């Protein structure tokens, strides 16, 4: 897509997105959109590390969980409003990811993935057992949210609109970060590292630093997503925010949407949420069956993801139109 038409498309999308909550009273639709936005943030977080840096993590739930716990604890114990707290949650997750990354990045390929799995399981164990910090399996519950006035109006936390707008903002931050990464020197370095790590070192690329910085960004986004979760759902416990299913869902979104693309996580999130809702209607449970199935189908038939394939088709289409136009 040419830069100008891409920006125009995103602008149109943004305008429509912001207008929606004022145009409809369908709370279910708004709730689904909130979920889509949140999952886009999480998918983008995984995509930054998995799609751009090529490091497959099965432990991203840990970063999400840290963001969630940080946000809810800061609110319940220190009175920090969650709309600020979630950013701190992101920072906390980023800070956690740095030493973990420094250790895990000494491993390559599948060894790295297995290590992230172990780290995430350890995090869940800690959350379950260090009751003095995390309340153990009981978790935390927010009963009342603080009052907030925006532009002279009191925010009504019972309505979906404030959460919708916040989620949309977070999604914008996530997608913008990804877009920035793609065009930056760090993004170029990540491509090089994926292609040939030794050759990258030989031309002066600090591969360790690049990977850690990327992980920190990935962690920040996942943590912010976790913070939002705590804010919107008002309940955090080890099973809800630290289970491996969450990690797999993030992988799924990034993969199905399209690794290494900016729009991929949004497409993936739409897909995932649609499936989840459809399945919930028909069968109540079993949406993970379809996640697994679609992951397999996508890897087999659409390895560049839905959005990835769409972009390729668009590019081919434009090339053909240019040829015909010139002829």
């Amino acid at each position, binding site marked *: 897509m040419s830069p100008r038409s891409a920006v125009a498309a995103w602008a149109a999308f943004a305008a429509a997105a912001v207008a929606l909550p004022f145009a409809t009273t369908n709370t279910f639709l708004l709730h689904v959109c909130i979920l889509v936005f949140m999952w886009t943030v999480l998918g983008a977080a995984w995509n930054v590390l998995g799609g751009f840096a090529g490091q497959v993590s099965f432990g991203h739930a840990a970063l999400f969980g840290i963001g969630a716990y940080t946000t809810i604890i800061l609110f319940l114990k220190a009175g920090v409003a969650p709309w600020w707290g979630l950013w701190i949650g992101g920072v906390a997750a980023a800070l956690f990811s740095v030493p973990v990354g420094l250790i895990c990045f000494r491993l390559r390929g599948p060894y790295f993935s297995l290590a992230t799995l172990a780290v995430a399981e350890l995090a869940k164990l800690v959350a379950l057992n260090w009751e003095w910090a995390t309340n153990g399996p009981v978790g935390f519950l927010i009963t009342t949210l603080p009052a907030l006035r925006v532009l002279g109006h009191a925010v009504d936390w019972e309505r979906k609109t404030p959460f919708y707008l916040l989620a949309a903002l977070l999604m914008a931050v996530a997608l913008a970060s990804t877009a920035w990464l793609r065009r930056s020197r760090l993004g170029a370095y990540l491509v090089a590292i994926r292609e040939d790590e030794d050759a990258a070192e030989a031309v002066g690329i600090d591969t360790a630093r690049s990977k850690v910085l990327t992980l920190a960004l990935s962690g920040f986004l996942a943590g912010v997503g976790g913070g939002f979760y705590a804010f919107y759902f008002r309940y955090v416990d080890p099973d809800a925010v630290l289970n*491996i299913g969450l990690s797999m869902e993030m992988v799924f979104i990034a993969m199905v949407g399209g690794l290494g693309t900016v729009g991929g996580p949004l497409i993936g999130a739409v897909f995932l949420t649609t499936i989840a809702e459809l399945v919930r209607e028909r069968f109540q449970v079993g949406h993970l069956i379809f996640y697994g199935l679609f992951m397999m189908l996508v890897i*087999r038939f659409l390895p560049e993801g839905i959005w990835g394939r769409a972009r390729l088709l668009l590019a081919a289409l434009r090339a053909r139109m240019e040829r015909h136009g010139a002829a």
Partner: protein
Amino acid sequence: METFVQSLVSGVLTGALYAMIGIGLTIVFGVMRIINLAHGEMVMLGMFAAFWSQRLWGVDPFVSILAWAPAMFALGMILYRFLLRRIIPGGELNTLLYTAGLSLLVANLALFAWTGDYRTIALSYGLTPMRPFGIAVPPALAIGFVLAAAITGALWLFLGRTDMGRAIRATSQNREAAVLMGIDVERVAAVAFGLGTALAGAAGVLLAPSLYLYPTVGELLIVKCFVIVVLGGLGSVPGAIAGGILLGVVESLGAVYVSTTYKDGLGYVMFLLVLLYRPSGLFGVGKS
């Protein structure tokens, strides 16, 4: 002292069964350099196969293994031929994620079909512990151990004495050379994957009378399995045996002397330490 020996014995017995799971994974890795994240689900299928054949047809689990092991072998070969074979050329990352998807699919299909209720297998002879040398040993675990040892022994003979076994070892050591020597590596890969799946399923059948059964048990088992094969060295069968027994013992002793809640955590920590400081395994035989 008695507690120590008791938990040591218990650890060795369970560890041997873990080892069988590990052997399956390590053979697949050795031949195809892929890490099968759905391996835990293969064990789970074996467990439930044993459960249902006892519940529906009254077949004793240790007898049913005669039917289920070959069935799992066939399943493995089918999975390889029709699913995995096309994915592997797409690279390590894709294959890893594909098996992750498969794992999700199988575990959740099972969850849907059989619900998440914990199941157990009750054996008429399983209630009173045997007491060799005064150590309490649950009969189910003991029989499972004996059969596991027998199967591992048979596997050892297979790998060492038969042509296919040698072909598997050769392909595992140097795939290109094996091709040049006229070995049909595709066939070897299918057999290896079938073998790995059969071992996982068989281990599931043998473990079934001794554990709680539930469809998502694969999640827990796959991590233990990785600990084992990394400890023992990816690709090494003796390493997997040693790693399995070591993990079983560490968990058992850890549950008694450290804490029951953290016993899984011990495994993870051990795993991370080995990954960092001796990624080729405690015995240094693992391949990268």
